[in-house]
């Protein structure tokens, strides 16, 4: 598939990284500054770093990285330093950076501040502050299909029966991004394995190897026969490998650590977004306040399938992908799920960030839940608990 190519390129690019892009293409004298929460040793940041290097190299622009910038005043300082150093675009990759980026954006109106995963650009009314995200729920839906296929295979092999098709999911926070993620994953799985159910446990952290591992162990103990996760450490995949439970991971292939259980992984490729903002600034075009990458833009990608993937998975995924691109398949099609036993006809989501979580926007259109479209905001806001998914440890 096309993703694989991009992946490889990204890697070679990252190997050859230099501080400041040496080969400068004629037209562009754009300079981009990047702020990363950690460094390339973090799953999350590596993904951004690879995308950034690739895009900047390709555009031939100068760039600067600031790694290990915590979600505090340091982020503001880093942003200002980058602006002082002549960057035309300053990008930050972590959710908690947002407020500090906004502060910097107010101080440097001529510099474009772009922020991934943020939610405030559309309400902040700053012409130089932008959010971006991708329809990763589409990727997760496809990964869910791979999971469903696997369940089907296990039923067929007699390993489990139909009423044992319970999926476990290790989530970080009870955040819309996570909820949207596991729901789409589940819907994907159920689209091929109708008997599937899911149990979710939360760790309360984006990266906590122990909590993720123990969370996974608990799910396995609880009878989950397949796991997936939305958290950044290797805790859950390795727990699966040890227990021999198939696993759909996130953000990159865990095949080398989990050769026997890795099925597939979805991730966001940020290179298209970076290419877009560089191009916009170079050509004096306005950057979208909320930019959403999709399967079509190449922003949402799946890794190569692992050995544990069931036969026919690739075809099933390709088919679904085509349907999505064609607009015939919506992940959150209200006919495919119920909430409290009822089909959703109208839902006010909390799209505009506020401390009281005020629901402010009708998001059910044309029979589906319109998740993170550029019309509202780029970051996900699907936060419903659908039937078939149960949350662990809710009984007091």
């Amino acid at each position, binding site marked *: 598939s096309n993703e694989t190519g991009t992946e490889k390129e990204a890697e070679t690019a990252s190997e050859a*990284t230099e*501080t400041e892009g040496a080969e400068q293409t004629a037209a562009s004298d754009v300079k981009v500054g990047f702020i990363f929460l950690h*460094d*390339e*040793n973090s799953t999350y940041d590596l993904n951004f770093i690879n995308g950034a290097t690739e895009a900047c190299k390709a555009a031939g622009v100068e760039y*600067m*990285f*600031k*790694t*290990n910038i*915590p*979600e*505090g*005043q340091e982020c503001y*300082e880093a942003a*200002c*330093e980058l602006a*002082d150093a002549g960057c035309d675009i300053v990008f930050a990759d972590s*959710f*908690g950076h*947002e*407020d*500090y980026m*906004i*502060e910097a954006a107010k101080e440097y109106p001529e510099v474009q501040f772009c922020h991934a995963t943020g*939610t405030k650009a559309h309400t902040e009314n700053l012409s130089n502050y932008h959010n971006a995200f991708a329809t990763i729920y589409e990727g997760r839906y496809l990964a869910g299909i791979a999971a469903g296929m696997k369940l089907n295979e296990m039923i067929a092999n007699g390993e489990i029966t139909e009423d044992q098709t319970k999926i476990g999911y290790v989530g970080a*926070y*009870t*955040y*819309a*991004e*996570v*909820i949207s993620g596991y729901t789409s994953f589940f819907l994907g799985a159920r689209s091929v394995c109708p008997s599937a159910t899911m149990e979710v446990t939360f760790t*309360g*952290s984006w990266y906590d190897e122990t909590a993720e591992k123990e969370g996974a162990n608990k799910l396995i103990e609880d009878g989950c026969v397949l796991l997936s996760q939305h958290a950044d450490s290797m805790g859950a995949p390795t727990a699966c490998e040890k227990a021999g439970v198939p696993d759909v991971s996130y953000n990159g292939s865990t095949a080398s650590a989990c050769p026997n259980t890795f099925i597939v992984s979805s991730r966001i490729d940020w290179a298209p977004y970076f290419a877009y903002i560089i191009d916009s600034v170079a050509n004096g075009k306005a950057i979208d306040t909320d930019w959403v990458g999709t399967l079509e833009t190449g922003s949402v990608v799946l890794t190569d399938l692992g050995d544990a993937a069931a036969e026919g998975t690739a075809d099933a995924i390709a088919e679904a992908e085509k349907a999505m691109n064609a607009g015939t398949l919506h992940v959150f099609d209200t006919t495919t799920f119920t909430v409290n036993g009822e089909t959703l006809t109208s839902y006010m989501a*909390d799209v505009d*960030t*506020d*401390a009281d*979580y005020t629901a402010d926007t009708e998001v059910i259109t044309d029979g589906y839940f319109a998740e993170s479209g550029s019309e509202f905001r780029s970051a996900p806001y699907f*936060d419903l608990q659908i039937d078939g998914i149960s949350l662990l440890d809710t009984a007091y």
Partner: protein
Amino acid sequence: MEQKVKEPRYHIVKRADISGKEAWIIRVVAILSALLLCAIITMVCTGDNPISIFATIFKGAFGTQRKTWITLQYVAVLLIISLALTPAFKMQFWNVGGEGQVLMGGLAAATCMITLADKLPNAVVILLMIVTSILAGAIWGVIPALFKAMWNTNETLSTLMMNYIATQLVAYFTIVWEVPKGSGKIGIINQNSNVGWLPNVGNKYLLSIIVATVVTIGMMIYLKYTKHGYEIEVVGESQNTARYVGISVEKVIIRTMLLSGAICGLAGLLLVGGINHTITTTISDGQGFTGVMVSWLAKFNPIAMIFTSLLIIFMGRGASEISTAFELNQSFADILTGIILFFIIGCEFFIRYKIVVRKDLGKENA
């Protein structure tokens, strides 16, 4: 001649009081050799030119005006925390709970900012923040002190545990106050109204620096010239003696930890109200522990602490620049910091002692 007993080739003797100049020469030599070793290691590990690495470290800390200010601000905060811990250490009270005390101070400040923003005028909120954060730090500091005073409970462990409890409390409230739902982040508090933001004096970095200066001078005077300072020293050196001369050891322990915690709380206030305008569990960034090192390294001398905290911040700041410039991961800086510290603490030996090599080997041969 009878069977030869092996004569020690050298032995170690105490030096007569060494002049300040000589001591500094020894220290400078130590730092230079440490830098040399660092240079060699850097070259071996990366192949980069060590000179440019050091230049980059320097640039990272003092390269631009903004950087210099930030560096000084960091030094100020670390210095305040180190100073806060110092009276406890002088009292031989193992306060490794700076982290928790800072967090609690910060949490109190954040609580005021969040809950009182639209209820009280800004000045009142700030006043309450100052009072509550100092109080919160003091309370967090005094709890282990009470245990110690009443039952001689090991304070190393109790203060350490208090850190974790404080961290979890902050984690709890972070989620309670998170925006948006589920994100686990509070974000900048009162970003638009700026209620509870400590005022800028001159520029936004200066406030911490001024506070640090005041605390440094105050602590120096407190420890050296006051009755309290004297009592702290006596209690630290010998509790029996303290009791003998009628010092209430329990009272001193409690009073000192109140002070220690209060100043940590003040650091928390600066971090939340003056610098970050938010609270996270990592807001003190391990400085409660770094402060231990700063304080001991300076042998509890507040003035010397300015230099030790500067050194540590300088290395840390330089490091992030290295990682930007050379694609070295940031941990490399920790290695370099470690090496430099090893040399500095090692060289004290040569200031206090000298090694005498036996010269009368001739006699042996005779």
